[in-house]
């Protein structure tokens, strides 16, 4: 038992492909039944809402499956990109705050940004000093010192302006643009930040990337939470406009169905593009890079560029999904971005569905979201049942905070789900396929 395991061949991996996708179809049927059951139990408005959220999560999961499934990059900071998307959706769509634009503060803000630009240029110039024959240790020293001074100056100027904004008009308000602008910018911004992180961290082993992204997500959250002048911080901004008529105008179910059709179209598009890319030589190259970077480089593949490409692509999807989710929730609350909901849940979706398999990921997203949402009433129901049973037959004392305890179990359940899926179906329910050529 101990020694025989290590050359095990993965059966799921090399099993001959069946022409008829039995597995896919049966899973879809199960899913459809589950959705139907939810509709029956919870009513259409609530269930449609659940589907919309599941679809937003599906976009996030597709982003993660690109990074992790295709390329083996483990991004443990999905939350940060989701938050960025939400932020853009908010900033671009909420109404303009005339109090801010009519005051002298925009000018001062611009001035600080100008300082910043000058400072960056200065530091950049200093870092090139070796060209003038300055020894490199001296250059480093000067650059660091000047950099710190510039930083301190800019930051204290910025503090002044932002304090003024906060105390005089709360926050700078939005741009009042159509919702989709915010979504596009959200995707772009997330991609941009992803580019920056990727540039620094992608050369390293994937564990390090996980740690770094975990940190980045917290930093993004800390920034959004503490920059009250920009985001109102914990005071939250709501309501956010929708790209389709909102429930106040056409009723819950219809409004949500419309929203769902928007996200569904987005998913279809993304899905189509991803499938095409994955099955093209691009996908093969990405898998090769995931597998062995040294020899990919020797085979002429620009691994840094490709890794970056994929990381950014994933982040863009996360930003986009985050924006759609943010608009749908109609509130921007930086405090509400939690690793459990926005990183680990997405992770579970991907590993359950099958990393690297787009269809599996979609399936995982919807299935896991249903489980997640339904687990609250279910957990309570089960707890109550047990408690009542215990009370009736053994005379138990009911603990006062039954609800609270039952819901703690959710964290536990997510953890359990991760470990059990990894153990039972390490490649997910719909594993990535090995391409067979005849």
């Amino acid at each position: 038992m101990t020694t025989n395991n290590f050359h095990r061949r993965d059966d799921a991996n090399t099993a001959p492909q069946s022409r008829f996708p039995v597995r896919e179809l049966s899973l879809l049927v199960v899913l459809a039944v589950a959705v139907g059951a939810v509709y029956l139990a919870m009513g259409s408005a609530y269930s449609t809402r659940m589907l919309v959220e599941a679809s937003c999560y599906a976009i996030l999961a597709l982003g993660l499956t690109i990074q992790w499934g295709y390329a083996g990059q483990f991004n443990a900071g999905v939350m940060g990109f989701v938050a960025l998307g939400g932020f853009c959706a908010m900033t671009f769509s909420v109404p303009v705050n005339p109090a801010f634009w009519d005051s002298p503060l925009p000018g001062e803000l611009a001035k600080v940004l100008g300082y910043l630009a000058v400072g960056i240029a200065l530091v950049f110039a200093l870092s090139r000093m070796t060209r003038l024959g300055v020894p490199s240790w001296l250059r480093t020293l000067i650059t660091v010192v000047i950099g710190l001074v510039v930083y301190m100056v800019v930051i204290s100027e910025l503090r002044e302006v932002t304090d003024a904004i906060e105390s005089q008009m709360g926050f700078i308000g939005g741009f009042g643009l159509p919702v989709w602008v915010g979504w596009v910018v959200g995707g772009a911004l997330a991609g941009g930040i992803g580019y920056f992180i990727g540039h620094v961290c992608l050369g390293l082993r994937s564990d390090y990337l996980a740690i770094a992204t975990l940190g980045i997500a917290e930093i993004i959250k800390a920034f959004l939470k503490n920059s009250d002048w920009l985001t109102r911080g914990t005071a939250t901004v709501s309501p956010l406009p929708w790209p389709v008529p909102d429930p106040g105008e056409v009723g819950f179910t219809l409004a949500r169905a419309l929203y769902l059709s928007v996200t569904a179209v987005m998913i279809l598009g993304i899905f189509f593009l991803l499938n095409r890319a994955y099955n093209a030589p691009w996908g093969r190259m990405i898998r090769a890079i995931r597998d062995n970077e040294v020899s990919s480089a020797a085979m002429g593949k620009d691994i840094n560029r490709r890794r970056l490409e994929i990381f950014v692509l994933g982040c863009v999807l996360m930003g986009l999904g985050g924006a759609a989710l943010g608009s749908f929730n109609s509130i921007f609350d930086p405090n509400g971005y939690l690793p459990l909901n926005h990183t680990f849940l997405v992770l579970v979706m991907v590993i359950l569905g099958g990393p690297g398999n787009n269809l599996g990921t979609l399936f995982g997203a919807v299935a896991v979201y249903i489980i997640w949402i339904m687990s609250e009433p279910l957990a309570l129901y089960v707890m109550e049942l047990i408690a009542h049973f215990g009370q009736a037959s053994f005379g138990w004392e009911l603990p006062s905070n039954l609800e609270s305890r039952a819901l703690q179990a959710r964290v536990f359940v997510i953890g359990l789900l991760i470990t059990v899926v990894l153990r039972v179906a390490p490649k997910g329910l719909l594993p990535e396929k090995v391409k067979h050529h005849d």
Partner: protein
Amino acid sequence: MPLLDAREVHGGYGGMNILNGVDMAIEADQIGVIVGPNGAGKSTMLKAIFGQLNVTQGDILLRGEPIQNLPTNRLVELGMGFVPQEHNVFPSLTVKENLEMGAFLKPGNVKRMLSKVYEFFPPLHEKRHQPAGELSGGQRQMVAMGRALMAEPELLLLDEPTAGLSPKYMYEIFDRVKEVNAAGVGILMVEQNAKQALAIADKGFVLAAGQNRFTDTGQALLADPDVAKSFLGG
């Protein structure tokens, strides 16, 4: 009683069978050499003997005792040593530590055998404080061989020990093998330098597609034109 006696061994990875009934037996004072085309199942056979493979059918006996389901570290206790074809050193341990690990079960051996191994392979002495991962291909091969010798096994399984070694060391290795064998250690090795290897072999096994194709003394196989043409490269 043969030192090692494998009869009708079937086995493979996962569902697929690679070995389809291989027989292989050597006495305590013999050198056995396995040759054959790439992918014939030579390495797989060594792994089967060394307990790293699911043997589905057949028996493997060491001095008459069945050993097929024993964990690897038990086999080492029973006196077997193994040099795998790939991944055969501990890259982050120094050369010396690599060798020490070879004698993990016989700490008493360390001192004596260390100097012996350094004597066999002088470059190792020079590099003894360097991590094995930084060695050249040939030097790694020496470490791998040295590691296996450290435990003074009674049966030594070698998977292509001369691959990547310069001619000088290739002959050196064959000399060592003869020397060790003379001290009463049974040797079973896979070789692609088939002519040189068969020249010192008491027994030769030609494997193809997971089955014995020819089994005879080394000299006889060398002399057999069929063998030479299709397996030894003319």
